[in-house]
């Protein structure tokens, strides 16, 4: 069935005392009152894995020792992440999720902006994969990044709305060595060429912006220009190529309708000739014509 975009509110959080101290009550005691919070069937419930809550202190792995809370019923005697600041709440999560793709969480862009683990994930009532609080990443990320996710509805787009890619295909929201939380590589072009390896080169002849950042010319989130270009050709190329003769020609309707220079306005525009614009491996490829 088709996915339905929907907004999801960021979870408000207030402050509360941090971790409870004391003895453990045991998971059975917790579920005795909070049966609806059972996490069986999730990775947290995998008792055969040494680092999971099920293999350690159960509910109290995250919520802290709860004997005092269990005996008194006093809410303040147990750690409730929803009543902590996002960063406080995340501390419990990163005590285990501190490796792999989560290793650079602390100090990352989202962490700095008070986006915590439970802003996006729900341990007990997830709606999507990876225990997300929304049915899909696009839906979840739209909560804060609506102008970006809207671009998926442009006619020139990556296959996100078709379900073949998702935000995390390119981004690691948990922290990254690259800019813009890109998941792969250390520069924008290294991230893009991890899939578009045919443009990785290195070429004999390189186009300077390609060697730096693909986003100089492309908008990977979607565009109303062919090939997700940031502006329409030939005008995009003319933003830099103010040379002589054909590049700075006024490409208007007259040229389109009357001149053989129309081939620079219709169809592929400049790249119908400069087809090797991402780089050329031909000895005569200096101008990316071969």
């Amino acid at each position, binding site marked *: 069935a088709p996915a339905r*975009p929907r907004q999801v509110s960021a979870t408000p959080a207030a402050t509360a005392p941090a971790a409870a101290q004391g003895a453990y009550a045991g998971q059975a005691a917790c579920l005795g009152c909070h049966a609806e919070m059972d996490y069986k069937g999730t990775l947290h419930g995998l008792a055969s894995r040494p680092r999971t809550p099920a293999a350690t202190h159960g509910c109290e792995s995250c919520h802290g020792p709860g004997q005092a809370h269990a005996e008194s019923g006093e809410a303040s005697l147990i750690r409730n992440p929803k009543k902590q600041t996002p960063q406080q709440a995340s501390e419990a999560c990163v005590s285990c999720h501190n*490796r792999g793709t989560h290793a650079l969480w602390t*100090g990352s862009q989202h962490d700095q902006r008070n986006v915590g683990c439970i802003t996006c994930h729900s341990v007990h009532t997830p709606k999507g994969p990876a225990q997300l609080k929304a049915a899909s990443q696009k839906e979840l990320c739209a909560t804060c990044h609506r102008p970006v996710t809207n671009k998926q509805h442009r006619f020139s787009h990556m296959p996100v709305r078709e379900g*073949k890619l998702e935000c995390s295909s390119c981004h690691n929201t948990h922290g990254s060595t690259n800019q813009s939380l890109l998941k792969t590589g250390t520069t924008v072009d290294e991230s893009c060429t991890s899939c578009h390896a045919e443009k990785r080169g290195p070429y004999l002849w390189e186009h300077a912006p390609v060697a730096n950042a693909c986003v100089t010319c492309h908008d990977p989130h979607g565009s109303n220009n062919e090939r997700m270009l940031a502006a329409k050709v030939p005008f995009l190329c003319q933003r830099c190529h103010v040379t002589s003769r054909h590049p700075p020609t*006024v490409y*208007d309707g007259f040229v*389109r309708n009357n001149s053989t220079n129309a081939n620079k306005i219709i169809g592929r525009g400049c790249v119908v000739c400069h087809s090797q614009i991402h780089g050329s491996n031909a000895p005569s*490829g200096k101008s990316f*014509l071969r």
Partner: protein
Amino acid sequence: QTPAASEARSRAVTGVVDVGARGTSGSGDEARYERYRDLRTGVFSHLVFGSADESRIWSAGAENVGYRNQEYVFRYAGGPVTLKGGFDSTPLNYSYLTSTPWRMDSPGVFSLDAAARGQVQGRVPGVVGVPSSVAQLSTPSIFRGLANPFDLRSRRDTASASVAVDATRALGWSLAFTSTGKTGSQPYGASFAFNNANELPLPIDHRTNDVSAGLEYTREQGMVRLGWQASWFTNAIQELIWDNPLRQTDTTPFDASGYSNGNGPARGRLAMAPSNHMAAVNVTGLYKMPGRTTVNGVFAFTTMGQNDTLIPWTINNAIANPSVYGTYPGLASLPRPTAEAKVHGVNGMVNVTSRPNRVFSLTTRYRFNDHRNLTPAFDARQYVRFDAAPYSGGSFSQNFNIRQNTFDTTAAFNLRPSSTLRVGYTFDDFDRTGRSFSDMRDHIVRASFDQMGNQWVTVRLSADHTTREGFGFSEASLEDGGLQPGVRFYDESDRNRNRGTALVVLTPASFMDVTFTATAGKDIYKGEGHEFGLLNNTNRSLNVGLNVSPGEHASFGFSIGREMFNSLQRSRNANPPGTDYGSWTDPNRTWDLTNDEQVNIVDVYVDLAKLFRAFDLRADYLYSDSDNGFVHSGPRVVALSTNAALTPGDSRPCTAGLTSCFEALPNVTNAWHRVTLDGTRYFTEKVGIGVSYWYERFDVTDFARVDLAGTALPRIDYLGEINTGYGNRPYRGSSIFTRLLYRF
């Protein structure tokens, strides 16, 4: 019940079998309806299986089995082992309306009808090859009649498998392999001259194999990870060879203006993307210190390279012969037989985050990135343009090296338990070679305010200001490239950038939220001597969303937004210095282009589960449009509009009594609608039926598209070009699914 019975039940396989029939119909550019999917009429399938208990969890699924977008996934987690695997096909359907007169004789080798080429070369009266005048447009190109229709599309198939093992509580390792093959064709330029541009269906046949491995050691105080990644890209098509529509034989002797007038070779040759490889090793570390201070960082070393055999200077035998080498000795042989291209990269990053108390925190980051291209310079002081004409105005190849140092620090103050004010500063230094500025530095100051924890309202505000300064400007580097000395490239020029975002979420009741999102940004490109290029751009957006969930089984809402983009660029329509009266420096040759785009977006949804009994209904409507204007102005445009002040050396054909030889370009507009309806009804606990309906409509006007007169079908022969007909065309498409559901 016994514990054994309970365990058996928890181990039971659950899932959904959702199969049925799909019918699809459409009109217009139907490939766009199926851009990244396969909606052909036939069998539809969606299968999910899984099982979970305390010892292991596994799941498997399949989508659209047997179709071009089929997908299979498998996941297992049990004990210390996690396994993942899958296969995915993603089509990229460009157009089903395309046609081409070229025939592919073998992968990458295209031929054109010899007799037709002979007639064009022989200038047989009434025969048009590539139309070059308005008068010729009324006579179809001889190649239009020879063109055969074909589906222009490609497909990416990805198979992947990974394993991760927690060998001990502290030690873990992982290994992943992905193999991606891409086949099919894509539209690609393959031209011979300014008046002889062509587009072919370039065949695609390449594969990328990626391997990664990691070893991690984790303790309560921190972790360290050693990682390795490698990637091999292999392109089965090394070159593209294709016939010239204007020439059956090489122009002999070569015409020095062949790259311009079309008197070029019989065939052309392009080098395709080289097979290449990449490898990286990295070390990642994390250490928690007293005082709620955490240090994490990465150090990585990367190599990339390729050593493909180089194609010759040209395929044109009128140039590749000893008599020409006497004048152009540089073309007698290649400086080296293979590319010998390689790049080394070094990247390091350290984050220190300290939260000593609940009021104050400080995050500091240093990042270093060095991209060093070690490819030996390639001597192309003499080379061949368009396979048509040798040229002595070339150069050595140039490497673009980038060394970036970034220092970033952010201080956060928790004004109240739920309100945080942050201020930050970033210094970014880029040291580069091969560019007009050898160094550029960004100074970024920013502030943000986040108010959370309030039951009624969440507020997120941010603003930043960037000042970019370029250093080491080389006017000579611009002049070497034939550029106006007043041009500045927008990815390196002096620039002021201001940006701001605001997000407000109101929650007047627990079942309702209203979200307001606003963004604005403006870049002003400036600096001493900056006259040409992109001068400024702005963007603004406003979005309002409402979500209502009055009950457990019902929700509805909408989102509506408008985005506006504007840019101004300046150029000069001039000939090179010394070639005419001095147009190079003539301000009357200067022109501007203002680009304005407005985008509207609407999204409305209704989700009614258990509408009555076991009937679920979901409906969604999406709309997005764009109105993109291109307004030329400036002295040059005034002169063209009045046709009165055209200067010497002007080549525009606006004589013959025309009062104006300027025509404004019409706006490029589009509007896209999508409706989806999905209803399911379960008759028993396990068995149900479903009906889904998808509808899309796309309307577009675009001056870059050329249609056959009076139709919405592509015209492949137009002024100066023979293309495939690929373009931005309207479509309508709808699909209906009837489904049988069985859940267990």
